[in-house]
């Protein structure tokens, strides 16, 4: 009896282990990203503009000695407005080989989502490459768009990575 519990539990846990997502808001939409990719959250400060960069790349900031590019997700995802106020937040992401800051309207929460709460995203045409959407998190009546932020930030249309 005891034995079966011990042998079964890890398998179940691996399958059903909830993962934590940092959720943020862009206009009316709510997004979630893997919390382990987040280095820190800080207020928005005007970055140094980089000439001839796409408009959603706001520029670079000095993050304690490191030059970090800032991407405005609202511009990237064609949100209706992108004003900078006291609540505008930069999420500093620590991706595999680089540090990138993303501008969002606000950070809401850290959510635990179990795999059974995640639904596949329907195949629709959107500004977000379907490849970089992990799925849709169903939370009561809210919908979380779970992003594969690593894939999204390193994709070629982001223009953050030099094209080899």
């Amino acid at each position, binding site marked *: 009896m005891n034995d079966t519990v011990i042998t079964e539990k890890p398998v179940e846990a691996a399958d059903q282990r909830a993962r934590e997502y940092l959720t943020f808001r862009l206009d009316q939409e709510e997004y979630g990203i893997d919390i382990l990719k987040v280095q820190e959250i800080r207020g928005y400060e005007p970055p140094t503009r980089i*000439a001839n960069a796409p408009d959603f790349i706001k520029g*670079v*900031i000095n993050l*304690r*000695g*490191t030059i*970090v590019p800032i991407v405005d997700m609202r511009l990237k995802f064609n949100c209706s407005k992108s004003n900078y106020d006291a609540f505008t937040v930069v999420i500093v992401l620590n991706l595999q080989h*680089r540090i990138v800051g993303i501008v969002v309207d606000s950070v809401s929460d850290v959510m635990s989502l179990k795999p059974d709460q995640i639904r596949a995203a329907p195949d629709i045409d959107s500004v977000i490459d379907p490849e970089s959407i992990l799925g849709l998190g169903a939370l009561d009546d809210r919908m979380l768009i779970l992003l594969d932020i690593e894939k999204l930030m390193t994709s070629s249309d982001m223009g953050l990575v030099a094209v080899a």
Partner: protein
Amino acid sequence: MADVHQDSGGAGTDIDLSQFYQIFFEEAGENLDQMEQMLLNLNLETADDEELNGIFRCAHSIKGGAATFGFSDVAELTHKMESLLDKLRRHELKPTSVMVDVLLESADAARALLACHQSGTVGQGPATADLVQRIQAIVAGDAAAAAPPPAPVASPVVAVAPVALTPSAAPASAEASGVRHLILRLSKLDHAAQADAVAELFRDIPGLGDIKPVLAPDIAANERVYDVQTSSSNEDLLDLFAFHVAREQVSIQEAEPVATLPPEPPSAESVKVETSVSHPTPAAEGYGFFDGAPGAPKPGDSAAKVAVAAPAAEAPKAMHSVKAPSAGALQPEAATIRVAISKVDQLINLVGELVITQAMLAQNSRSLDPTVYQQLLTGLSDLDRNTRDLQESVMSIRMIPMSIVFSRFPRMLRDLAGKLGKKVDFVTQGEATELDKGLVEKITDPLTHLVRNSCDHGIEMPQDRVRAGKPETGTITLSAAHQGGSIVIEVRDDGKGMSRSKILAKARERGMEVSDSMPDAEVWQLIFAPGFSTAEVVTDVSGRGVGMDVVKRNITALNGTVEIESAEGYGMRVSVRLPLTLAIMDGMSVGVGNEVYILPLSSVVESFQVRSEAVSTLGQDSRVVKVRDEYMPVIELEKVFQVPRFNTDKTSDMMVVIEADGSRVVLLVDELLGQQQVVVKNLESNYRKVPNVSGATILGDGKVALILDTAALVRRSRH
């Protein structure tokens, strides 16, 4: 023939030598560690070639280094290890645990010997002759050697050991400094050549001493007796002889004041050096130098290991056993550590941040009332001093002395001068001047070129020098010195210098725009043009005209400058000015709109307020400006960087002339903000390459400013 010598201005030759010693000791230590590790991990049955090769390489590098620096004992030991390992890796022998034991012991012994050399207590290292013999025995495939390590040699020792007990006073004087007078008896020789070989040692090794054969009627046919005067210890002598005769065949004794040879058989009074170390306990355990010595441990055994057992109190001091140093008594502390560059760079980054934060605090505290905030202000000024010191110390981690570069030139010049039939003295000054490691690596090639040039083009042939009233031997001086935030490296020679007229003629020949009224400095700069050479004969050394332009380009790439001074008939001087580190650059900050850009100061030629009539358009929208007699293309930073304008009244009216890749362009900016040292940051580590930008820096207020890539801007103006 060339007479090249290094006449160091700052550090003496001794210091240089010891610097190299230090490097050798460190590397040898690392190699020994690595070898030990690999030996311990070695699986005897399945030892693969890679592992064996690795161990062999370790022994080989130590041997090479030791031989170079004249540590013959280490070299000899490692040489034996190497031959054993060589057989192993060529599969002539199968690795056994005995071999591993011997090799490990040898590694310990080598470490102890190195420690002795390092601490300068030469001659007090452990005896290695025995290890050498054991390794030899194994290499020779000696069946007996397969037995536990000390066994094969232990037996002969047992035979003579008791003899040693009688004249135990004799070796006491063995260590006495000064020349000793010894009677050396070689007995039971297989053939006479062995004795001759020993005698030859004294002739071949300088300072070993004198040897004279003693002819006496009582010497047996297979014996030789010599009268030896030497300052070496018995142990050293035995080590040397070990190449030719077995240890038990040798006996050394102090010569009697009477020069006649004692008539007794040699064994009766001879002193076995090894056994004299041991003490009047049975000899078998007296040989317990090493772990795993045969025989049950007896009370006297441990005493024998430290070689100072009471009965043998007078035993020579040289007889430190192998055990003693490895016990840690002589273990010197490592004077350096190796650290990944990335860690140092991170440290430099953090300190840079600290400095900026500190500057910010200092700025903000300036308005405080000193009477109210006295303590705070004192603390801040302490912080100021400490951060500065910290920054300096951290920056110095990456700094290495110029001697690393300079040391390669004496040899090169010697060969070169020999080839050219010139006589050259090479003088270096200020080789202790420190420079960033990254820069040192990059400056070596340009400097090599300059020195070769001096030798080839500068210094005349000896007869020409004499005719010109100069000493036959030319002098090339290489000097390095700090000047402000940069380092100035000079290559000077007292050769024929450069001929202004020749350079101008050559330039005209090549269709370059020159005039006779050009200032000297500009004429000399002509030699940096690609393909420019005034050498009458193209030699394999130089003269093809490739080079000076490359030198200039390399140095410019390091944010450095090259200046030439020359006096025909008296020589020339090339000064290379470099920033102390690549991480810091002298920059000029310029404002465009609300943005700040940094220009490398090294590429800024001049700046001036523009007069509207000086700017004219060429073609559709290209603009040129007339600066003195020259029209230069104008680059508007505002357009290149699409700077947004909030204040439409203001326009760019400052011009900065920049030079890169040999051409000049004019940058149109709003204002000049000042000059400052900036810490260069990579933009590509988190972003990607940005056109016309070489990097970024952080300004005093914490904002990021982009550093302009002047070379790219100049290229841009061309098409």
